[in-house]
């Protein structure tokens, strides 16, 4: 799976979760930039992303990601580790 494909998935799922088809997402986007991105939405987002990409984040990875860029990188690393 290419880095672009992972990124596309991240953007798509973010737009679904926050119910906003025109949501602007960059690597620098963080929780404070998106209306409704609270701790519950964070969990929803991570669950949806792990399901969509077929990976499981480690306990230490579920919180503490600073922005969407770090999130995408962590997910990409998991996808690679799964051999895909």
């Amino acid at each position, binding site marked *: 799976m290419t880095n672009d494909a992972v990124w596309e998935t991240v953007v798509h799922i973010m737009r*679904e979760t926050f119910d906003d088809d025109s949501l602007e997402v960059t690597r620098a986007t963080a929780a404070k930039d998106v209306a409704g991105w609270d701790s*519950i939405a964070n969990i929803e987002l991570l*669950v949806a992303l792990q*399901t969509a990409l077929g990976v*499981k984040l480690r*306990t230490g990875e579920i919180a503490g990601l600073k922005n969407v860029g770090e999130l995408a990188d962590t997910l990409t690393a998991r996808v690679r580790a799964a051999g895909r």
Partner: protein
Amino acid sequence: MDALKTLVGEGRRDEAWDRLFRLAREAADYAVVQSLCRARRTLLALGPAPPQPVRIRLAVLGGATTTMLEEPLQLLLHAAGVDATLHASAYGTFAAEMIEPTSATAAFRPDVAVVITTPANLPSWPAWNASTGAADAVADEVGEYWLGLCRSLHEHARCDVVLGNFHPLPVRPYATAGAKLAGEPNRFLRAVNEHLARRAPPYVHLMDVAALAALHGVDRWFDARYWYHAKQPVSFECLVPYARELAHLLAALYGRSAKCVVVDLDNTLWGGVVGDDGADGLLLGEGDPVGEAFTAFQRYLRRLKDRGLLLAVASKNDEAQALAPFARRPEMVLRRDDFAAFVADWRPKSRQLRQIATALNVGLEALVFVDDNPAEREQVRQALPEVRVVELGDDPAGYPAAVDRSGWLEQVAVSAEDTARTALYEADTARAVVRSSLGDYDAYLRSLEQRATVAPFEERHLDRISQLTNKTNQFNLTTRRLTRSDLAAMMASPNHLTASVCLADRFGDNGLISVIAARGVGPDLWIDLWLMSCRVLKRGVEQLICNHLVERAKAAGYRTLHGVYLPTERNGMVKDLYGELGFGRCGPIDGGDHWSVEVAAYRPAATTIAVVDAI
């Protein structure tokens, strides 16, 4: 989903709600349910939801995080016809909320409280090497801790309580040796669950989380990562099944569950097509793997009948062909008289189902349809959207699980009426035969030799009375849906007069079939609740129970008896009941009619039923 979004976007609210509920009933995936919850929020912002048959106040308490469960639970309850107003307590406050008489939960006046717990909430554990006696003592103490909390909340809030039991842990550090260790953690959890099952009072309904976790697999059921992060009681993979089970349990408390399972015959109850293969050519019983699968399915269906569900057949066959295997094949587990209705002809299944619903006097939404043929299932889904159609799959080995997981077969208790239900329907057939042979209706009634007991509500009848209040739609004056706790409160109240009628005749015992409750205000007595099973309509029970209430009112010193008729879609038959009994219409009230009669002026109506002390 896209179709739903379009409907929402176009503001077509009624269709959108309809589509939303259908999708909710089928959804298993957490992400899909999240989308549906978002759609529900959008729709609620546009306007109120369509009114549901049942409205309840639901308190949610947790030793775990309940937030992620709350919206899916409300969505699934809504799709099951229950409009729940929720009150959730802060994380970890369940004990205080249940103990304090002035807790916010008690002040919320819930109808039902749900307590969501995990093994982490147990107050004590035995030592791993404790003796059996010591370990069992801790299990009893822990069981009593939970039941004590439930008792406390029940007393303060007069509500029923749904309590989850405890699922096994995902590791076995003591390995096989653990089976012989009284203090082994999983053995201890089983002992606690056993204590709860044996000692739970009738107002506590145990949600069998242990059984659910076993069905899904403990590894899938519990996700330690989200427990550590957010104290989630269940994984996201299993969150929807958890919420759905809970929704169905709550719906069943209020009568929103199936009454009849309608099955096809060919390739559903047996292997093969009887019209082509003949009764002897069908695959049934030992000696053939497919035959064994069908036999096992019949055994499963018979267990449903044991606990009070009705079975019916809807088959496209000549009736004689359809009946042949019941007579000719000893491997048939189900017999003809296990079915309360048997329809075999060449009409569309939807017509057959309508006939069955009418014959059994149940609504279409009380039917579950089981048919191996996807085309038939689709025909019924389209023609009768209220009927629950099981997605049966194409392998008879999977049929029992497919029906079992349909979610519409929940039942919280089994009463004497439940175990006798199919026999009750057989007796009805016998009565109908007599009825058609006697021209004079009065002669027919006398020939039944009816006898009845009439008495105030009794503790041992409360489950059955609650069931009646929740399932009776036609002969129901005010359509109030009540839990055991509500009824116990009426029983205990000095201002209330209650009565229930048990009826038997020469064909059999109908059990408890009518209920009335009235509330005194000064010299006036108001009938808040009056309902009767339609199976005993126009046999004199209406007159009997009214006469009885007037006698009790007289003895208690009331001057005027008031009755209220609140119209619904289903209860038109009792619109003029009070008039027929000699009450005078006073005027409109609450959207319905207010009737009254002076107790001294009431003339007891005639009835052919003999009142006895015991049946």
